């Protein structure tokens, strides 16, 4: 991947080739008629990766740990479920509404939550996450309470679309998830590599410093929060039609923590991390069948070891490896100032510590 003695800054242009190639290759998978089970695992990975991308916008880019994301995932899922089942809307209308609702609730949460600082912010959002789960669990009339919502139908036209391509419905879901994931990655990449995104990175590096550099920290955090919760709702809406059944349990903190694990394994603040981490850990979970309910006997210590010894996840290890490789190739060539600076995406992120301590 490290083409022609690469200058720093080639990152995104490499990404511009690799990401589309990856998605096109992935789109061809249904042609080889894989088992429905394998496709379903693929869809699950993509849905949870999307949620991880949402969390990444906050934790990876902005440096804040919100713990209500499963709640927003739930709001997205239940909005789609309720609007399609009880109001009779089409999924294609309900889905964007769910995303917008999540952004709105995210805005309201941010207005209150960003008044608290640091650790209190995380704990406060955790409380909000629990409230969302409890409301979903108790509001029988709307959400079906403990019984959940049953029989959310696949999106209109998806089956016909699959048939037209000579594929099964599971392949249709797979392609829908793939497009959704591609949209998510594109949105997150654009948000990150922009003047807005650089300001988020500045906030991650130190709020006071960002403020004195003239950044309106509060509004930037609010927008990051809205983007982050909207993505969570986007993933949730897809989950609703894919699984067809909704229960309150999935909207609780355990889901948030599991996605946090995916994100940490892959690498905070990177573009590839959420997908890589989710793919690895989710597949691992599938092989730990016997431990299904007890997977945290393995994952718990894994979380601890990750933050202690590899806080940048796999992406961090990769960056370190790449740095070592490029250090071996003579001195870097002189660089022209017009080279795009913000386009060296995956150079190990989240090295916020230095600034914080300074």
């Amino acid at each position, binding site marked *: 991947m490290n083409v022609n003695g690469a200058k720093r800054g080639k990152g995104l242009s490499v990404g511009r080739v690799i990401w589309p190639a990856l998605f096109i290759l992935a789109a061809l998978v249904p042609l080889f008629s894989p088992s429905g089970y394998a496709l379903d695992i693929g869809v699950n990975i993509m849905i949870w990766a999307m949620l991880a991308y949402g969390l990444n916008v906050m934790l990876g880019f902005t440096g804040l740990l919100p713990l209500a994301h499963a709640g927003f995932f739930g709001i997205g899922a239940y909005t789609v479920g309720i609007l399609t089942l009880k109001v009779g809307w089409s999924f294609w209308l309900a889905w964007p509404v769910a995303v917008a609702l999540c952004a709105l609730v995210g805005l309201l949460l941010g207005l209150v939550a960003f008044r608290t600082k640091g650790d209190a912010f995380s704990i406060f959002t955790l409380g909000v996450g629990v409230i969302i789960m409890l409301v979903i669990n108790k509001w029988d009339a709307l959400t079906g309470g403990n019984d959940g919502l049953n029989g959310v139908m696949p999106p209109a036209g998806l089956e016909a679309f699959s048939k037209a391509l000579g594929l099964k419905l599971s392949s249709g879901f797979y392609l829908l998830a793939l497009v959704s994931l591609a949209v998510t990655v594109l949105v997150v990449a*654009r948000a990150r590599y922009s*003047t*807005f995104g650089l300001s988020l*990175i500045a906030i991650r590096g*130190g709020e006071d410093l960002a403020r004195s*550099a003239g950044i309106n920290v509060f509004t930037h955090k609010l927008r990051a929060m809205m983007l982050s919760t909207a993505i969570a709702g986007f993933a949730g809406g897809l989950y609703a039609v894919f699984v067809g059944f909704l229960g309150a349990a999935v909207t609780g903190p355990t889901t948030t923590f599991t996605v946090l694990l995916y994100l940490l394994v892959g690498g905070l603040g990177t573009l590839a991390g959420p997908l890589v981490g989710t793919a690895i850990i989710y597949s691992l979970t599938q092989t730990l069948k016997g431990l299904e309910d007890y997977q945290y006997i393995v994952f718990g210590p894994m979380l601890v070891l990750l933050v202690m010894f590899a806080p940048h996840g796999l992406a961090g290890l990769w960056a370190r490896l790449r740095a070592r490789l490029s250090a071996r190739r003579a001195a870097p060539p002189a660089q022209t*100032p017009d080279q795009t600076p*913000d386009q060296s995406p995956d150079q190990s992120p989240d090295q916020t510590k230095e600034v914080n301590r300074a």
Partner: protein
Amino acid sequence: MLDVQDLGIRFGGLDAVKDVTASIPTGQITAIIGPNGAGKSTFFNLISGFYQPTSGSIRFAGEDITRLKTHEVVSRGIARTFQTTTIYRELSVLENAMIGHRVRTRAGLLDALLRTGRERQDVQGSRDGAIQALTRVGLAAQAHLPAGALTQEGQKRVGIAMALSSDPKLLLLDEPAAGMNPEETVNLMALIRELVAGGLTVALVEHKMSLVMGLADRIVVLHHGQKIAQGTPAQVSRDPAVIEAYLGSHAHGGQMGQTTPADLTLDKGGAHA
């Protein structure tokens, strides 16, 4: 350019800054000095909107900015640097400077997602603004290095570039020469003179009296949060209240084991003047 009137702030019953009335004239270098704990940094934090004063007012270019938030103060044209080399060490030098330029750009999240014309314009604008600021501090060639890889002095310059790229009228430097050797200090003084020659107004807090005496057009002396003297370097160093304050705090500081070389250098400076 900047006028403060009866400015004060209390922390838990203690007056960190009290009844300070002073002005920073346009196009000059104003130094704010005083013994340790005199409230110099607090004074800067008040001006830059980090702290909200409990009394008094701040006017900048005729506008009352007393209650503005930090980013609003920056957008009015007041930028600052910090005592320590507070920059984004893991980002490139250019990115640091671009962050400083953010206050002059308007593209938001939607612009970013839709790659609007405004976004593209702002990206270009930040880059140009940043390069310009880096050129002014002599770092254009290092634009793509990680800021943390630079020397202590280089990092100080990055901090100044970050402040400059917000296109300020007034630059506040908090102990710019801390941790620098004499040669670097001389370079820094040359840089500050250049900036002022280019039309910038500078206010600085500094312990190194050689720098203050050699650079400042005017000096404001704070002691226990209050202004005890104001004037040219020559006037201030002859002022009995100033000498008293430094000697007194020196004796006191000695007991606490906090004697700073700066205190001694003022004594010398005073004797020379």
